[in-house]
């Protein structure tokens, strides 16, 4: 007789941690946003006082990440397994990985420019997870009882996180090179332009985005292969054009196109940045719409 021990009270505490992290993310997001708006000021005194705000934002982001991480760990303990077996858990673990990679990368490379994006996006993901995807701890259905759960989903989480940061950089790049931003006479856009002028130059951003996306691509390929190996055991065929398989493949092809765009010059720059964004939108689509509204075997949201 198999049995498992679930701890719903602990899952409740984990949820409180996640909600607390959301509060701190909000504070971090606001500091970054104010920081940017100050930087855009025409007055020198205002601009020089801004860096304090940015430092505060980074500290807040780090605090949020720690609370967030504690929430993820508690969720795992409450379910006595890895915390990534349904959409809620995928979201909280995935966004934690995003902020961790961001903070680590920050120590090596100056990518402060997307801090606002990371804080804002994590807030959005956690908000959605908490309100839409929340499910209490459940045992794993027999199809999920496999060590492939650890491998396949962990790598999917990592790939998604890398693509996320790659897409953030691509968006920044698109704004920076956009003609309408450059030409516009609107005051708001002019302010925006001054902010963008503070970002590293376009080449650097393009290359950084590329770097994140290639790592994402390698991890994504692995997710797909690991999924197929698992499918051979759990669903008795390695590939069956299940909706999730189809979309994972589509995303893989989009990013393969992105790599080709960068390899053969002439397609790099804006067009390849757009491909990176399209790729990430497809990932979000795959995770949300395909999971919730399409029929298929791969439905592990735990939502009814």
């Amino acid at each position, binding site marked *: *007789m*198999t*049995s*498992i*021990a*679930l701890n*719903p009270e602990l899952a409740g505490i984990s949820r409180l941690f996640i909600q607390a992290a959301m509060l701190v993310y909000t504070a971090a997001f606001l500091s970054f946003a104010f920081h940017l708006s100050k930087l855009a000021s025409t007055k020198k005194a205002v601009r020089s006082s801004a860096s304090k705000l940015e430092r505060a934002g980074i500290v807040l982001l780090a605090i949020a990440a720690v609370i967030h991480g504690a929430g993820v760990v508690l969720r795992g303990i409450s379910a006595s397994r890895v915390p990534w077996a349904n959409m809620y858990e995928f979201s909280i673990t995935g966004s934690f990985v995003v902020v961790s990679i961001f903070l680590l990368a920050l120590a090596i490379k100056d990518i402060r420019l997307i801090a606002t994006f990371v804080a804002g996006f994590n807030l959005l993901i956690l908000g959605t997870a908490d309100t839409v995807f929340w499910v*209490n*701890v*459940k*045992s794993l*259905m*027999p*199809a999920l*009882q*496999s060590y492939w759960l650890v491998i396949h989903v962990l790598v999917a989480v990592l790939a998604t996180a890398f693509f996320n940061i790659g897409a953030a950089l691509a968006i920044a790049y698109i704004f920076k090179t956009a003609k309408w931003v450059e030409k516009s006479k609107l005051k708001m856009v002019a302010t925006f332009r001054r902010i963008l002028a503070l970002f590293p130059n376009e080449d650097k951003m393009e*290359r950084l985005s*590329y*770097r994140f996306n*290639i790592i994402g*691509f*390698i991890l994504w*390929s*692995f997710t797909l*292969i690991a999924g*197929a*190996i698992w499918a*051979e*055991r*759990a669903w*008795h*065929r*390695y*590939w*069956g*054009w*299940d*909706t999730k398989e*189809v*979309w994972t*493949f*589509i995303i893989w*092809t*989009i990013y393969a196109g992105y*790599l080709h765009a*960068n*390899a053969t010059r002439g397609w790099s720059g804006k067009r390849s940045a757009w491909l990176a964004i399209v790729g990430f939108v497809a990932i979000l689509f795959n995770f949300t719409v*395909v999971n919730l509204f*399409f*029929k*298929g075997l791969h439905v592990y949201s735990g939502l009814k």
Partner: protein
Amino acid sequence: MLAVAAVPGSVFPQRSADPNGVTAYFDGNPQLAPILDAVQLFDVYTSAWFSAIYILLFISLIGCVLPRTAVHFKALRSAPVDTPRSLSRMPAHLEIKASAKTRESVIEASAALLKRQGYRIQIQPGLDDTPASVSAERGYLRETGNLVFHLSLIGVLIAVGFGGGLSYSGQRVLVEGESFVNNLAGFDSFSPGTFFTEDKLVPFSVSLDKFEVDFDLQNQSNIGTPLDFRAFVTSQVVGETAPRTAVIRVNEPLELPGSKLYLTGNGYAPQLTIRDPEGNITYQGATPFLPQSAKYTSLGVIKVPDAKQQFGLIAFFYPTVAELETGALTSLYPAPYDPLLTMNVYVGDLGIDGGAPKNVYALDTSSMKQVAGGKSGVKGLKLQVGQTVKLPGELGTVTFDGLKRFASLDVSYNPGGLWVLVFSLLALAGVTTSLLVPRRRVWVKLADEGFELAALARGDDPTLEKVLGDLARELKPKSIKKESKA
């Protein structure tokens, strides 16, 4: 292009994955559906146009990779290209002042250094035939990785094609105590690949001795969730003396010669005996009921063709029955703590004699008359285990003898799988190498008052400047005058 072509397959229901969805679509959109069907939108992945794209992709891959392999082979065997005349145009460039003494040895020194760092080098003489420059190149693996990746993709396509053609899968529902033989007659349904022949089926038999399920009873929020399914089977391969016993679980198929046996579903199979008014048995056996909900409310169909008047039963089974406020029945828990069977009875032509194969899980009641349950005016039948009740009219009685479980098994064979895996992993290794190994050329060349360094990367290489800086420092530790290029 293949990506775009794959989209409709996730939007429209596919016959291979969701045949009921296709039927429902036809019912819901009677005008549109036949048009969509004509362009094979319900069979996207086996459609002519999808195959056409697949073959095109295949050809273009070959057309692209073969010439590149040839070029790369040549490059691997030839020396790095000659030093260009003007190095200052390269993306990274340094000019360093040096004494005459340093100048004398710098070319040999840098050649040795670069060689140690894994570069392939060529020393080139100047006008007076003394060494005047070194040209070096490294990162040939980048292109090798790229080619391995593309070649492996071709491998994947071939393995998928051949594997699919040689593959087969057959499904069989077994009630505890039953067995089946691995031949075409032994399966409830069977889907062969294009190159399949029946002699590919290795003769063996499998019987289901026992089926066990664990449901969660401990955790309040999780009551009734299945924790584990176990099918205890005995298999006998022809030619082997001893039978083998094994447990099949989800994620743990049983490997038999030439195929794998998977557990794909399970449910209850109530045992019934039906007798005519004289007491002769007209039906006896355990009939698999298909689960309709997580609590195993199950639906079953029983056809009694051999009675004086043909009749059929549509039955519901509730493992732990409860009554809702509306009076409808439901199941509270998936294990059989308080099992109940309810039945509606239909008399008339079962449609079996026509010879056309009929779905055993469905009863076509269009030319039958309901005589118990529903609007027939006679109450539906209700039975607990061990009970016998009378059927309406002169149909006789039905007895609920006991309860068994059944398992749905899938016997699958796909020889392509292993090769697809091998090629996919090769492709992954190839693409990783080609993305992460930098390929670059480096030149060191004597100049009037010292020497020049330059580098050029193929693809993205953020460390180009640093590479030159380090090189210069090693060649001439002091005084580095930087003249970087924008």
